[in-house]
Every structure is written in C-alpha cells, then in structure tokens.
C-alpha cells in the first residue's frame, strides 16, 4: 500500500523559512515588530510545532505516513535556521563598540559643516539658528 505524503513536514519547514526570510524585508521595517522580533519567533514556533506533529506521524505511524528521513532532515535544517536567526539577533546585531567615548548630555555638541547629498554645505550652527533644536541621527549607511 502506498503511504501518505506527510504534508505537515513541508508546511512546518515553509513556516520556518518564512520566519527567517520575512524579518529583514517586512518585520524589521516597523519598530513594533523589529525591536523584539516576536512575529518571527511565532512563525518559528508554529513551524516547529508542525514539524513536530509531522515527525510524530512519521515515526508513530510509519505504515501510514512517509517522512522519517525527510522529516529528520527538514527538522535538522530548521534548527540550524533558527540558530542562524538567533545568532543575527543576539550577536551580530549587538556587535557595536561600547558608548563610553561618546559625547555626553550637558556637553557642548561639536560644531561641523558637512555636505548634504544635494551638494549644499550644512553646518550645525546654521541649523541651530532662530532658536531651533537639532536631532542628529548617526546611521551606519549602505543598506
């Protein structure tokens, strides 16, 4: 008798892939899903549950369901992908120098004149004229 396909395994694996791949293009765009990537954690969790159920079918009822080998491979891959995600979130993302050297609140802000992208020179002192405040956003660039 032909054994049934074990769709849960693939569904679980697809969710795990989505969990990994949707973070940067979608969920990292919004602060509410970026700072703590809870949507992606939930996707990993859902994928893990489906994979777990699929594996239980494959090993519990091998006479009905396929997927002992495939399920083990997909589950292994999923663990690796989750580890990769955690590595990025907990290690790569925090790989920046300590802030001890930074200027401090209460200190004068060093003046500067820098080129804007349209070629205009912009200086801090000009921006502060007319009783205006300035918020400087230092960003890493090229991404």
């Amino acid at each position, binding site marked *: 008798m032909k054994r049934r396909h074990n769709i849960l395994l693939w569904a679980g694996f697809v969710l795990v892939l989505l969990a990994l791949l949707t973070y940067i293009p979608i969920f*990292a*765009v919004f*602060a509410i899903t*970026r*700072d703590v990537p809870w949507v992606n954690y939930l996707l990993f969790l859902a994928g893990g549950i489906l994979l777990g159920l699929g594996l239980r079918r494959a090993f519990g009822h091998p006479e009905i369901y396929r997927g002992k080998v495939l399920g083990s491979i997909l589950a292994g891959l999923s663990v690796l992908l989750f580890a990769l995600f955690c590595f990025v*979130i907990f290690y*790569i*993302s*925090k*790989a*920046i*120098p*300590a*802030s001890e*050297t*930074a*200027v*401090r*609140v*209460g*200190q*004068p*802000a*060093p*003046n*500067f004149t*820098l*080129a*804007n*992208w*349209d*070629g*205009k020179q*912009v200086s*801090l*002192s000009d*921006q*502060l*004229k*007319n*009783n*205006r*405040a*300035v*918020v*400087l*956003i*230092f*960003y*890493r*660039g*090229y991404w």
Partner: protein
Amino acid sequence: MRSFEQHLNDFSQRHIEIAAISVDSTDDSRKLSQAKGYTFPVLSDPAAEVIRNYGLLHPKGGEDGHDITRPAEILIDSSGTIRWENLTDDLRVRARPGQVLEAFDSTIGKLTATSGK
C-alpha cells in the same frame, strides 16, 4: 529614519531640525534619500571626522573593513548643548521619534515654555 520622516510635523511644530550623518558618499546619500523620500539633510562624513569628534567611531565596522559610525541619536538645544542622547547597544533597536519628542518636551520644551511666559 523612515519613522522620523513620517513625524516631520511633530518636529517642525517644536522647531526641531533633523539631520542624518553617515560615512556614505553624497552619491549614496542621494540614492538613499531619493529612494526613501527623506526631506531632511542626509549628510556625508566620509572621513568620519565629525563621527570621531562625537566619539561615535566604530573602527572597521563597515562591510569592507573601513571605519563607520555606531548608531546614535543626539538632541541638541539651540545653545549647542546636548540635552538627550540614545546610544543603543543593538543595531536593530533605534530611538523612535516619540522618544525624541518626549525627551524634547521634558528638557528643552519645558524651558522654553516657562521662559516664554
């Protein structure tokens, strides 16, 4: 930076200018600004001089090993004094516009409100 652009009104109401700074070339900054529709200045500090002056250098933090800035948001009052700053320890977690506005209201805004009366 996208979220700051979306809250421009809140900043201009309080007479706060926004300026972004990175080591990117003016060319890269132009591409970024035009792609994202940023209307505030996006400034180039290719030699990281200003970044160094602010103590924000991330040595060899760039993709090809050159010096860049660590992420930071710094609020400066009209006298040129730093009144608030956010030195995140996580690249993904940046100050939200609301935090900066709140910081302004509780420091600079408070002073101008009382001295204005």
